[in-house]
């Protein structure tokens, strides 16, 4: 179906904002400022602000049950063993979890869902289009969106109790090295039986899958860089709480950094140096590949654009703040050809707001996914 969205202030993110209209065709943005067409359905945006749908690069929606305290509903962390690359977040997602609606109502149209951080290697994430009109399998954008790994206090505290395999940071590093060495040995073996655990690790070693590493402290960041160098694989840093203390290392190696959640108490020693200035410091040092994450439910997903606002409050440029919740996470997931900006040829994932996205007092008015109206706040109410 073709339709025109007219009279909006368009914020493409990848270009300057302008007043204009869009032609939507077959779920894609087909044309910018199309000529008036008779008979084409038209939606009047009344001069409100149109942004691309927001992209959350790191959350646990669907695996970590919303509105429940029951462990029966928690499928984020498989704690029985320290190395579980064969786990897929996809297999633990509760499709009708309220978190999806919470995300949609607040304009988050793409969700990357990772396993947790309780083990050195926890499993593979999945990227989903948050479009409730699609069947679950149709929502999958990338079935294997990255291998989740974790350093620091979480694997230590979990596996000192459960599998009793880790007491120190040294063991976390040793177990990861051993896993990748096992994978290399497996590859060399002739007449081998298929081993999914090894195959996933090999994908990382061959550059087909990126390692997304949960890490807070600067020394842990340097440990994973050391290991990645030894084996020659690509990494993205998740949380990266102390990245602002070693910005040169991040810039030199051009490692993508996903900062957040920015709004929790300093309840672990490894987050004591967390600062709301981290994004701004990284930008000043030359980091361009910055994204922001909520780690929902650690903080509610509606905070994602507010993290961008607060980063601006502390000196981040508005341009990078907007990119950090749209095109940058899209790029990190390998989806920037489809989502993350308002450009011709991209999915028509769009949100209409009464104020600018970076103003935390904005209201989301409408959300479209793949060109279809997915959320109408006036009818369905705010989820906040």
């Amino acid at each position, binding site marked *: 179906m073709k339709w025109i969205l007219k009279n909006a202030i368009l914020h493409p993110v990848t270009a300057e904002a302008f007043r204009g209209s869009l032609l939507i065709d077959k779920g894609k943005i087909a044309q910018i400022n199309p000529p008036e067409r008779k008979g084409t359905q038209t939606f009047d945006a009344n001069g409100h602000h149109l942004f691309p749908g927001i992209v959350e690069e790191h959350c646990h929606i669907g695996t*970590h049950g*919303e*509105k*429940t*305290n029951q462990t029966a509903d928690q499928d984020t962390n498989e704690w029985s063993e320290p190395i579980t690359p064969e786990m897929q977040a996809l297999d633990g997602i509760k499709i009708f979890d309220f*978190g999806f609606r*919470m995300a949609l109502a607040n304009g988050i149209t793409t969700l990357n869902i990772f396993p947790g951080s309780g083990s050195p290697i926890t499993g593979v994430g999945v990227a989903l289009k948050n479009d409730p009109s699609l069947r679950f399998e149709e929502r999958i954008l990338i079935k294997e969106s990255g291998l989740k790994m974790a350093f620091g206090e979480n694997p230590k505290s979990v596996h000192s109790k459960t599998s009793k395999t880790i007491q120190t940071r040294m063991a976390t590093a040793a177990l990861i090295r051993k896993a990748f060495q096992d994978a290399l040995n497996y590859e060399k073996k002739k007449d081998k039986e298929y081993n999914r655990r090894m195959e996933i690790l090999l994908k990382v070693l061959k550059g087909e899958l990126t390692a997304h590493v949960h890490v807070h402290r600067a020394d842990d960041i340097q440990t994973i860089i050391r290991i990645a160098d030894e084996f020659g694989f690509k990494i993205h840093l998740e949380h990266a709480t102390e990245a602002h203390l070693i910005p040169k290392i991040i810039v030199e190696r051009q490692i993508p950094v996903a900062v957040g959640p920015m*709004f*929790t*108490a*300093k*309840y*672990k*020693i490894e987050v*004591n140096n967390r600062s*709301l*200035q981290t994004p701004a410091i990284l930008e000043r040092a030359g980091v361009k590949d910055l994204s922001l994450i909520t780690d*929902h*439910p*650690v*903080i*509610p*997903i*509606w*905070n994602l654009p*507010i993290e961008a*606002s*607060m980063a*601006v*409050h502390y000196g981040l440029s508005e341009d990078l703040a907007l990119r950090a919740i749209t095109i940058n996470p899209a790029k990190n997931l390998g989806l920037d050809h489809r989502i993350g900006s308002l450009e011709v040829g991209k999915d028509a994932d769009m949100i209409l707001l009464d104020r600018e996205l*970076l*103003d*935390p*007092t*904005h*209201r989301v008015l409408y959300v479209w996914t793949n060109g279809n109206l997915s959320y109408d706040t006036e009818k369905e*109410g*705010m989820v*906040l």
Partner: protein
Amino acid sequence: MLIVKGAQIWKDRGLKRLDFSVEGGKLSGFSPSLLPGPHDEVLNLSGHYVYPGLIDPHTHVGLLEEETGNFAGDDVNETTSPATPGVRAIDGINPMDAGIRNARNYGVTTVCVMPGSANVIGGEGVVIKTAGKSVDGMVVSSARKIVKMAFGRNITWTWSKKEKYPSTRLAVGAVLREKLNAAKNYMANPERVCTYEMEVLANLLKKEAIARIHVANLEDIETIARIAREFDFDYVLDHATALHTNVEFAKTLKVPVILGPLNVAGKSFQSYDVTFASVKILLEAGLLVSVMSDAPVIPLNLVRLQLFLVDRYRLDRSDILDLFTENPAKTLGIEKQTGSLGIGKDADFIVLDGDIFDYRSRIRSTYINGNAVGGEDYEMDS
């Protein structure tokens, strides 16, 4: 005397261009133009905005300390007995806690600190200013005495795990009735031997103290109302997570409510009904509403975020500011001392370089009792 000149100040529910003076830690005068004398200190705040210091009526800062790793400085719940009216928050507060530093640097000048919610009667709370090295010197003495209580899952979860009484909601009500009965008998006994525990509960029954009751679910709120009728004491509903789901019932209660923490997800706060919408619904129902952070659940440097999120419901902005200033002051009984800018009140105010609802504006400095004690740039330096 300190003369503050040139700022837009938030007074009587609006921004006004007024100068003001501070003497002996108190606000002593307001005028469109104040002329400083030869011995007066002058602070020129042209282009700046002055608001009353923010008040958080429900926190655990200083007890549940940040930056200690898994809250190693945890003194929030005395879970050796389900009713501990004799313990006092003031005895566990570390004034050097990062949570208190956060408060003053981000505009919160007064906090109420209370024991946690693992016990039916948790102990005595205290209201303090957020600057100082000695907690005794930080106490806001005009505040009404506070007895912290709790209903619901936190208690039954804590005590059923230990396989001890009270493991159900039935027993929670029974523990409270038993203790209040004991206090009644204590008061009626002319030959009583003074105990601190009983004195605390006697204060409640004499209405010198007010009960601050942690509660989420509607059934628990009903039980509280029932027991309060039986024993005739004053109370405040803290969290009151589900109250907005029954507005007609809420209107019958006529008690102050302190909502929050609202910016939470996942295993929501013992009730699944947590929403910023509750603020609007209960304000429209005519209740005295305040908003808490429950810090460190939500750290005090993020109180302004809650203000932005409440603003999404497009309430009158005076009503929104009241949620974080005058309303908690009234609930704590300190409205004559702080919570607004007026002659004779403590000089607790914050200076911003823009409107408080503009996310780009920064808190340049925080004043408590007329002294500059913090601001966002202080945090940068530390």
